[in-house]
């Protein structure tokens, strides 16, 4: 056995030795819902700004302030136009490139002390309310799997590739690993 493992590069063998078992659909459903920026992974359901306002008062304002201005938790609005200034204010409205991220994050991580509490329609509603707070969608907008990925965030084009090494002698000629 030892001799065999020494002689054969294991990575080249597939299957290894049938390690583990095939994942079941239930198992995969039990993992967090990962949402892509194109909306892949978004579940059924929908939520309105009005429903979101109510939900926010119940579940979120305690930490984020009644108007989302921030308290224990960070501010959820403001800062548009500040990114290139000496005092940038990074929020969902000023900084986040994709609205889908808001769905993904609230669903997996909020409310902070009870993550996973919200059902998909409630997550859509919370997202709709926060986007509306930031002036990104109108009062009557409804968020669902088809409308959410179409929302264009103000800072959609604000992200660039990492260009390090960017400082110091010899920096530009160094190969990127």
């Amino acid at each position: 056995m030892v001799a065999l493992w020494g002689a054969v590069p294991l990575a080249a063998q597939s299957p290894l030795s049938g390690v583990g078992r095939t994942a079941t659909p239930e198992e995969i459903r039990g993992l967090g819902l990962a949402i892509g920026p194109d909306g892949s992974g978004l579940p059924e359901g929908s939520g309105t700004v009005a429903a979101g306002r109510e939900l926010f008062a119940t579940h979120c304002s305690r930490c984020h302030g009644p108007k989302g201005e921030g308290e224990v938790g960070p501010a959820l609005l403001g800062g548009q136009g500040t990114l290139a200034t000496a005092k940038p204010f990074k929020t969902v409205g000023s900084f986040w490139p994709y609205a889908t991220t808001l769905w993904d994050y609230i669903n997996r991580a909020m409310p902070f002390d009870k993550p996973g509490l919200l059902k998909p329609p409630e997550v859509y509603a919370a997202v709709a309310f926060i986007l509306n707070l930031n002036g990104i969608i109108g009062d009557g907008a409804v968020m669902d799997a088809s409308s959410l990925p179409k929302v264009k965030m103000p800072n959609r084009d604000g992200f660039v590739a990492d260009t390090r090494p960017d400082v110091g002698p010899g920096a530009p000629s160094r190969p990127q690993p």
Partner: protein
Amino acid sequence: MKPSFPTSRRDILRMGAAAMGGTLLSEQEALALDTPGTLGAPLGPYGDRSPFEKAVRWRRESKTPETGSSFTPLQDSVGTLTPSSLHYERHHSGIPTIDPARHRLVIHGMVDRPLSLSMADIRRLPSVTRTMVLECGGNSASEWAATTAPDVQRSFGLASCSEWTGVSLPLLLAEARVRPGASWVIAEGADACRMERSIPLAKALDDAFLAYGQNGEALRPAQGYPLRLRLPGWEGNANVKWLHSLKLTDQPYMARDETSKYSDLMPDGKARIFSYRMEAKSVITFPSGGQTVPGPGVYELTGLAWSGLGRIERVEITTDGGKTWTNAKLQEPRLPIAFTRFRLPWRFDGREAVIASRATDETGYLQPSREALVAVRGTNSVYHFNGMKFWRVRADGAVSNVEV
């Protein structure tokens, strides 16, 4: 004078003091050093450090202590390893309690064979062991501001070095049979917030591994027990703890912790995204802020250097505020992406000295000054600060940070 032989440890101690030209220990002092006449503690199943040792992690007070960071006391560390109990922490929703008998890793998405592995399955596979530093992307964030942090713990303490043991990720990905067209892996933890990061498949297929061991035992819960993604040289947050899901995709998922956080805002308002690499860095740990040099004399200047891109080749030290630099001696072996301790004998002559270190790694990259970093990146990029840290040793020996 009769020839006398030491008859007890007390005698030996007295003789030692005399031989060294010191004053004789008083009877009382010698007694205190002597073996007490009572038995010590019995053998025990799991060790504790001496009650006289007080080094602890530091953290900021917070109303939500489940998210935040605790800093390694680098000023108290000797050698190159960080004890697991002092390894820095950065959690976003607390430390979960996970029963390894129930924990599974699921590899799914763009694979031919969606795979579910128990911890027993994972531990059965050939293992790899690497001694490596782990550094938070936000380590030294304090140093962008003009008022820098006062000591090495609060300025550089979100970096720690451990020996990690686990399973090669390429091995498991081959087993799941990644489909053509897949280019990213979405990693997810089993903590309350299900921490999520997008990892380029190229990195996963290069040197990534899944760690279950740290410093000769299982990972500590705070470090991801029972399983953690380890990405050599990449920022801590991407090394997802409590790993339970790897989803193969054809795009990054733009998770909150790679867009809103862990991206680097530049002066022009654009933010660098997917900036995972941690560049060469070093800091003097003695003498460092908050310490006191007892008086004029010869001391060993010492500190730690590391680079996410490989081995440390050179560490230079200045004691005149950056005018002249001297090579420090490097502790061997110098392992890639690991803490490398450096040392230099130094005579403190009782006059103020401004000291700092700068590291060069095997790619030829030289650790920059804070000014050089700020000239390119401004002061609002939060992450990936790797500038030099200057300490001022005052004439009376008190050491503090240098205001810029």
